[in-house]
């Protein structure tokens, strides 16, 4: 179908253009797949959040009861508190570390290519697998090291301590998230025209001064993008937590994603759908923020 003959090519000249059916045939599979796999589940989720469904069998509408219950559920509130707090801390840790590393990796260093390749490597390691590796380090090696050095608070596993287990999750999440953040910062730093630095050097600005007065302000857009992308990703944290604490001790490190996924096993399907719906609107808010920011610097 839709063989475009040479004579049809001249249609470009005429005002009412016809789109070849082939173009629709190219786009349609993607639209259908996307609608079935993404849009339909999103609508279903919102629909079921107003019912008392347990995932199968009969159900009826119960209005906003699920939502009201959510806001007075200490487990859910705890999950939101933990996830948002953990995400904020991780965003700060990841961005400070990645920014400094990116500056190092763009300066006049020996073995630049190899070093960059090495720093990006953690990005390609499966989150749950590396979490199990760190789990061993935190629960076996670190306590042994701590008792050898006489650091009492760390002699017991970090992961078994309800007040400190989140630190372990921040460390492993940062380990995996720093590489892509570094890459975005490297792009930002390399986009600064070198004559800006030359002018600053002529004016006698020190290295630290150049960093603070040129590099940081001129990469502000990239910092903003990294903060938003990072925050959004950390809000979804799941597999690293499974590998480290599985939400414990108690529920001290249960993330929002974890509480939603438990909706099937715990039989509170529609309830967790309401949870997911709220999370959905948080995600949309962050997406809109991200769009505003990226559109602001789309010309770069």
């Amino acid at each position, binding site marked *: 179908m839709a063989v475009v003959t040479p004579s049809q090519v001249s249609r470009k000249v005429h005002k009412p253009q016809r789109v070849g059916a082939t173009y629709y045939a190219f786009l349609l599979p993607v639209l259908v797949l*996307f609608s079935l796999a993404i849009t339909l589940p999103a609508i279903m989720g919102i629909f079921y959040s107003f019912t008392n469904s347990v995932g199968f069998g009969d159900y009826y509408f119960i209005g906003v009861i699920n939502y009201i219950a959510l806001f007075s559920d200490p487990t859910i509130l705890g999950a939101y508190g933990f996830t948002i707090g953990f995400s904020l801390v991780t965003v700060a840790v990841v961005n400070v570390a990645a920014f400094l590393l990116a500056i190092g990796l763009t300066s006049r260093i020996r073995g630049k290519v190899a070093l960059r390749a090495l720093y990006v490597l953690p990005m390609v390691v499966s989150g749950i697998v590396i979490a199990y590796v760190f789990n061993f380090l935190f629960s076996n090696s670190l306590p042994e090291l701590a008792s050898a050095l006489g650091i009492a608070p760390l002699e017991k596993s970090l992961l078994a301590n309800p007040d400190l287990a989140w630190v372990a999750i921040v460390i492993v999440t940062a380990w995996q998230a720093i590489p892509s953040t570094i890459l975005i910062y490297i792009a930002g730093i390399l986009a600064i025209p070198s004559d800006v630095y030359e002018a600053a050097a002529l004016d006698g600005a020190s290295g630290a001064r150049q960093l603070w007065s040129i590099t940081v302000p001129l990469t502000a857009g990239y910092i903003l993008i990294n903060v938003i992308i990072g925050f959004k990703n950390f809000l979804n944290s799941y597999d690293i937590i499974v590998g480290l604490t599985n939400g414990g001790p108690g529920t001290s490190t249960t993330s929002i994603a974890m509480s939603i996924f438990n909706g099937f096993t715990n039989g509170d399907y529609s309830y967790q759908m309401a949870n997911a719906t709220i999370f959905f609107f948080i995600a949309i808010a962050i997406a809109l923020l991200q769009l505003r*920011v990226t559109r602001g610097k789309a010309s770069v």
Partner: protein
Amino acid sequence: MTSQISLAPPSTGGERTPVNGDSAHPRARTRGERFNWPVTIALLVCTLAVLIPLYVTLTMAFKTTAQAVDGNAFSLPAPFSVDGFVQAWTLTDFPRSFAISIGVSVISVVGTIILSAFAAFAISRNWNRRFFRWSFYYLLAAIFLPFPVLALSQVKLTGLLHLDNPIGVAILHITFQLGFSVLLFTAFLRSIPEELEESARLDGASTAQVFWQLIFPLLAPMSATVGIFAFLASWNDFVMPSLITSNPALQTLPVLQQIFQTQFSNNYNVSFASYLMAMAPAIIVYLFTQRWVMSGVTQGAIK
């Protein structure tokens, strides 16, 4: 909304201090051949953070069970033993789970490249039409929708359609890659001059022929980036297979690590051998494709 971020250079007032050699001068080229050694050394020291977990994985995997339980993660294997691999291989039925992981990844990579190249071609060549433009934004929404929001409904749907298996996982992997991939392809296609296609059409080629014979080969570098990201996302994914695939015997490698966690118990050499076999393929792919991985991250975030 164009005024959020000013990229104009700020005034750089002058403290009259001499320019210091170890400045954070980012635009360093090798002119002058003077390397910044303090920064190089600091960066080398920091690589320990990357290397230690990988070193521990490697050495633990080659220890005997007796040596692995002594808790000293940093010692070298003595004696050197492949016992962990032998046990992990049979315990997790590695050949089968490896084949399933590869199968899911291959379907995901091929499906992502073809479907998103199709869509991006149609969209970029009909950008002046509302239907195609809106389709683009519609697909882009997937970048922003987190999986947890959709998970329970997707589990329900895949169950109904008898796709609660690796095929269903691969299909979902494709859909979650579509937004990012269509974005990359569309940006790239806009840079290909349409005159090329015009001349092919004058020679009588159909739209499909133009795509397969002209456009798709030109897309090769972008297909590499898209394909590598689809592979890494699919190979390393834990959440989707763990929720979607109902039969534990059909699970991918990352999920198996969780399923066998209790059975590994204190046989750390077995568990680390298993971890190593699960992470090695992605690391090997990365070693050969670093260039695409690095450029893909930047393009995906900034375009």
